């Protein structure tokens, strides 16, 4: 069996678990079952779910915030200030939620089965111009921030805009955006640290959720040994991903900031607490309201997530 896998951009920390999965699956089946990974050749990144639903390819990665209407159930993981502390915690939380019946049903509309998350650390901002020393300095600042992170930034008076990662550099260079929220690997690969001159170390407003899914029919059509080889490799692939992210990316981040002479801005605990107070509750309430209207058991999902985090 040969599966086509639709990713985008180029090979990076964010795609290492899929690469590892391909390696493991091929090994375990002696090359009988291979994953053929394409970076952008099979689909536009915002249409990977469409491709899965059509059956054009069998596996794909996407981010929930690209199209909230396509996958409302998992956008709960993009709410600001959920309080996730580590990649390991983000992974466990995502994997638990991916089993929730409402989530399974939501993705089933696309003939998709959630396979594994791509855990990312908390986002923070890189920006140009004067560093915002206090949260009040964000008033009127144009920032690139998607989903719940955008909602959070709006809470301190910033003007959030969603744009895809590839447009960010140009927006920052041209002054259309003053700051950009990304995880560290993306700040490095999309070049924001080439232009920026400050970085917020502890804003931590949230992250994005980018699952890897498989086509449900294709999954069912695998032989038992092939399916076993695939499913049993997920945990190992994720272990590898997290180790890679922590070791390679996070350890390169500090030196990269030093090399570019980027100022680190740190906010006091009281300020962060006030920020969270102001933003977290209302945004979550709004999320529940909007998604209940879409026919989703939104309050359930939110309770489920908060319950998992309390464990």
């Amino acid at each position, binding site marked *: 069996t040969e599966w086509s896998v639709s990713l985008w951009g180029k090979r990076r920390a964010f795609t290492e678990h899929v690469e590892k999965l391909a390696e493991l699956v091929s090994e375990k089946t002696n090359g009988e079952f291979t994953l053929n990974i394409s970076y952008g050749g099979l689909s536009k990144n915002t249409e990977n779910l469409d491709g899965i639903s059509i059956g054009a390819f069998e596996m794909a990665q996407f981010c929930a915030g690209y199209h909230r*209407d396509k996958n409302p159930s998992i956008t709960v993981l993009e709410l600001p200030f959920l309080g996730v502390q580590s990649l390991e915690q983000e992974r466990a939380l995502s994997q638990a939620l991916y089993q929730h019946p409402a989530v399974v049903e939501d993705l089933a509309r696309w003939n998709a089965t959630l396979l594994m998350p791509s855990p990312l650390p908390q986002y923070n901002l890189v920006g140009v111009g004067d560093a915002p020393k206090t949260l009040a300095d964000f008033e009127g600042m144009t920032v690139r921030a998607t989903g719940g992170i955008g909602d959070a930034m709006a809470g301190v008076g910033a003007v959030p805009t969603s*744009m895809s990662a590839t447009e960010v550099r140009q927006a920052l260079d041209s002054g259309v955006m003053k700051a950009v929220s990304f995880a560290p690997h993306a700040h490095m690969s999309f070049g924001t640290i080439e232009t920026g001159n400050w970085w917020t170390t502890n804003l931590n407003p949230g992250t994005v959720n980018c699952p890897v899914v498989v086509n449900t029919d294709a999954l069912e059509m695998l032989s038992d040994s092939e399916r076993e080889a695939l499913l049993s490799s997920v945990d190992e692939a994720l272990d590898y991903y997290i180790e890679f992210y922590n070791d390679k990316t996070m350890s390169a981040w500090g030196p990269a900031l030093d090399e570019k002479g980027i100022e680190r801005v740190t906010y006091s605990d009281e300020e962060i607490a006030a920020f969270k107070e102001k933003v977290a509750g209302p945004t979550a309430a709004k999320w529940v309201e909007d998604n209940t209207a879409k026919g989703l058991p939104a309050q359930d999902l939110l309770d489920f997530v908060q319950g998992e985090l309390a464990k």
Partner: protein
Amino acid sequence: MAGSSTVLSDDTLLSRIDRRLYSLEQVLSLVSGLAVFSLMILAVISVSGRNFFNVPLPGYVDWIEQAMPLIAFMGVAYTQRDGGHIRMDILVGRLKGRALWAAEFITTLAMIVLIALLIWGTFSHFQRAFDFNAPLWSRDSSMDIALPLWPAKLLAPVAFSVLLLRLCLQLWGYGRAFLSGAESPVAVPLIQSAAEQAQAEAEHVSGSPVDAPEDTQKETH
């Protein structure tokens, strides 16, 4: 190509349908032009909002992405009617009479197959973004301000349907020309011969106030 071919007309049913459809196509093409104009206005609002009032236009990119299909698709049949989509005419340019009409008939038929399948494909693209039970019927929305995407996605199958109509008319026109062996049939774009061009030029009255182009309309009705 763009403008260099002429479409003749007479009193036949085919020609009357051709002209009827042409006026519809022209309206659609103007919609496309107005969408370009609105793109320009949108940028002016966005830039001045950001630089002078510190109020960026929310969802600027989303609105551009909504306008683009209008620009790209709405005029597709109009351009086909006038023979405006580019092609290589070195080979067909040498053909005459029945051989020419047969070649045109075949390539037109190939286009009909493509466009018919694409209407199916683009409509299914629209369907995946459309859900009667969802707020705003939307199952897929833009990234920044969550505009529903289904209207823009619907434009492709709509514009392609008009194009399909146009292609069917042209197929009819070429088929008729093949059967009758006519030199200059109606309702299909003709590759102009030098003599016809000279005639067309003689008929032309040039010049207008703001050095308007001499050739905006090349209809020889």
